[in-house]
């Protein structure tokens, strides 16, 4: 890598009280504040309709925030700057490659529009195609390359204009599961190599963990938790985050002092499974699946299903009775 490639480029992003209400009064995004330092990769994670794509489009300039909201790049208000002049790189779920152009023509299109001379354009396109590992496909029409290759062409095309911010709208969800997993790692590596400020939208929590420096978990038009992947996984802010990110057990119960109803959340790896003993919580194993490194058990605890993980060498079988304890430090209780 040359020095230029490793230098962080891209702008810092600030979003101030930006909300979006659609005609008809549907609030897609409540007024939101967000700060992203230059070079950071933020993942917007949430179910469909949570407002993550709406927020991405506000940053892109494909939609204007409700009055009072503002989008700033490097401290400069770009709220009224149209997308054509905002210098944002976009990667779409459908990739949106131009079907009438080759791989190289797609990647070079933004530079061509900007009137860059052909020689420097060709050099830059060659450099980018090298970086994404598609140099030998440069003259192919884009309908004759694979889904994973298309995704990389879309990424190279977006990067070519040296955008201030790179915006990725579910760029992996059009792929099948096995390829998605492989490309998630690939994409995370490329984004770090480009060292660019990026916002990546997804509904896949494993993808969010792999790609984001930080994750903003969104629900019903709001950011409900903003933190590192570890924060979000280990210290979920509320019931929604606890249920949405990773595998989570939930057991209903009562809060002792006020006798309020609450739910306890804990991860399979926080469950300690031992031989049945008097005085402990006893459960029945209803299913045991071997995963190589560990064994995933489904336990029946007084009519509630609980997932637990035990070392693979422990010979636990369906029908066995076991005792079960949950590490209190890894137990999250949220009132219902």
């Amino acid at each position, binding site marked *: 890598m040359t020095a230029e490639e490793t230098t962080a480029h891209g702008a810092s992003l600030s979003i101030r009280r930006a909300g979006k209400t659609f005609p008809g009064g549907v609030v897609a995004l409540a007024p939101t504040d967000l700060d992203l330092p230059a070079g950071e990769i933020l993942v917007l994670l949430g179910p469909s309709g949570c407002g993550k794509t709406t927020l991405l489009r506000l940053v892109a300039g494909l939609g204007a925030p409700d009055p009072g909201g503002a989008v700033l790049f490097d401290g400069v208000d770009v709220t009224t700057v149209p997308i054509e002049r905002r*210098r944002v790189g976009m990667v779409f*779920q*459908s990739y*949106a490659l*131009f*079907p009438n152009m080759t791989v190289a023509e797609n990647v070079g299109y933004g530079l061509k*529009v900007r009137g860059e001379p052909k020689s420097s354009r060709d050099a830059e396109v060659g450099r980018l195609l090298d970086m994404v590992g598609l140099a030998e496909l440069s003259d192919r029409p884009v309908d004759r390359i694979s889904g994973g290759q298309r995704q990389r062409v879309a990424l190279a095309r*977006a990067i070519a204009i040296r955008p201030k911010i790179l915006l990725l709208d579910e760029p992996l969800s059009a792929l099948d599961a096995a390829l998605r997993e492989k490309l998630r790692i690939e994409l995370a590596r490329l984004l770090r190599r480009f060292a660019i400020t990026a916002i990546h939208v997804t509904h896949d929590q494993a993808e969010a963990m792999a790609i984001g420096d930080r994750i903003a978990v969104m629900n019903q038009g709001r950011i409900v938790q903003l933190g590192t992947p570890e924060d979000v996984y280990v210290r979920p802010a509320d019931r929604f985050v606890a249920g949405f990110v990773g595998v989570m057990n939930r057991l209903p119960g009562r809060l002792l002092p006020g006798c309020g109803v609450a739910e306890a959340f804990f991860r399979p790896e926080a469950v300690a499974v031992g031989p049945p003993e008097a005085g402990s919580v006893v459960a029945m194993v209803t299913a045991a699946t071997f995963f190589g490194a560990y064994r995933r058990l489904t336990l029946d605890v007084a009519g509630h299903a609980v997932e637990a993980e035990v070392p693979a060498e422990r010979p636990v079988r369906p029908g066995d009775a076991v005792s079960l304890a949950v590490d209190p430090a890894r137990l999250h209780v949220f009132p219902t």
Partner: protein
Amino acid sequence: MTRRFEFLLLLPAGVFVLAFLLVPMAALVPVAGSGRLGWSAYLAVVTEPRYRATMISTLVVAAATTALTLAIATVAAQFLASRRFPGRDLLVAMLTFPLAFPGVVVGFMVILLSGRLGLVAQASEALFGERIVFAYSLGGLLVGYLYFSIPRVILTVMAAVEKLDPALVEAARSLGAGPFRIQRDVVLPALAPALVAAGALCFATAMGAFGTAFTLATRIDVLPMVIYTEFTLGGNVAIAAALSIALGLVTWLALALARNATGAVAAAG
């Protein structure tokens, strides 16, 4: 079993092609050679100045109709497909209205618009003291053809615009392309197959349309009119047959050339 079933599926199309296309066309070929001129009737289409001029003016009117229709319909279809405004649904429904009109009715409407007592004539007399009348010329014919071809082309192109991935335009915008550049580089190439198909239909219809010309025109020489006069008035069946086959061949050739040219353009990008 499946092969036999496939053959059964082919049967209706086969019968149709044989009975309505191949047999009458094959019958037409010798008829053209049966007249006073013999087989040179075919040559007359090219050598006889009147027929040649007619063929050329027919081609010009059809080509102009196609070009104008595509230009107007492409703009209108994109507007109608992407915008929501009050009355839009009514407007789109009204577009299908002229589809059912026979050429005679279209011709009548052209006369109402631009005939001796038409709207244009009255307006121009009031404004400039001069009556502008173009209903009975090739200009009137062009207006009539536009009237019935624009709606059907708009509907075809609208369907294609609605299938266009909106992310394509958004991607081009994010790369800095302005609206005209996006039309040229992204939208028109994506619409090309629909434009070629709709344009081909428009051109072929304009080549063969008869009712409008018949209503407007004593002085309009387009090929279908000449075929009609040779056949019914002149009793010149052989020339009528030769002209018919020439009309079919020339239309087919023009469409094949257009399809090839646009295919090459699309491939070259």
